[in-house]
């Protein structure tokens, strides 16, 4: 699982000032990989927090606790 290159391309293009900006295939692959790493890191840190609290379900509270440091790490 991951982010399809076409999806990554569309999301990047949302923010380009010049609509003619192109993104190479390698750059798209790299961005897709970066996004995957971000999501997995967020998910696992949430899991680690939930496990530390002896919980079986990761709730938004557990994610909120790790969010400041997660965002600063990226």
């Amino acid at each position, binding site marked *: *699982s991951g982010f399809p290159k076409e999806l990554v391309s569309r999301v990047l293009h949302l923010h380009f000032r010049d609509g003619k900006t192109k993104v190479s295939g390698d750059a798209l692959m790299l961005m897709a990989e970066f996004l995957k790493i*971000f*999501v997995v890191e967020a*998910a*696992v840190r*949430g*899991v680690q927090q939930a*496990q530390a609290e002896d919980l079986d*379900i990761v709730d938004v509270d557990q994610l909120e606790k790790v969010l400041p440091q997660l*965002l600063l790490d990226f």
Partner: protein
Amino acid sequence: QRLKAAVHYAVGRLCSEVALDKQVQFNKQTVAAIAEVTFRQ
């Protein structure tokens, strides 16, 4: 909104893999929260 939904879907799939690996569950709100943060990132 269609892009957000597609990002949300991809995030959901990744969270499911993590959940399976770690033997925990994510509730829908947590998956949505990760998707929102990812889209903003």
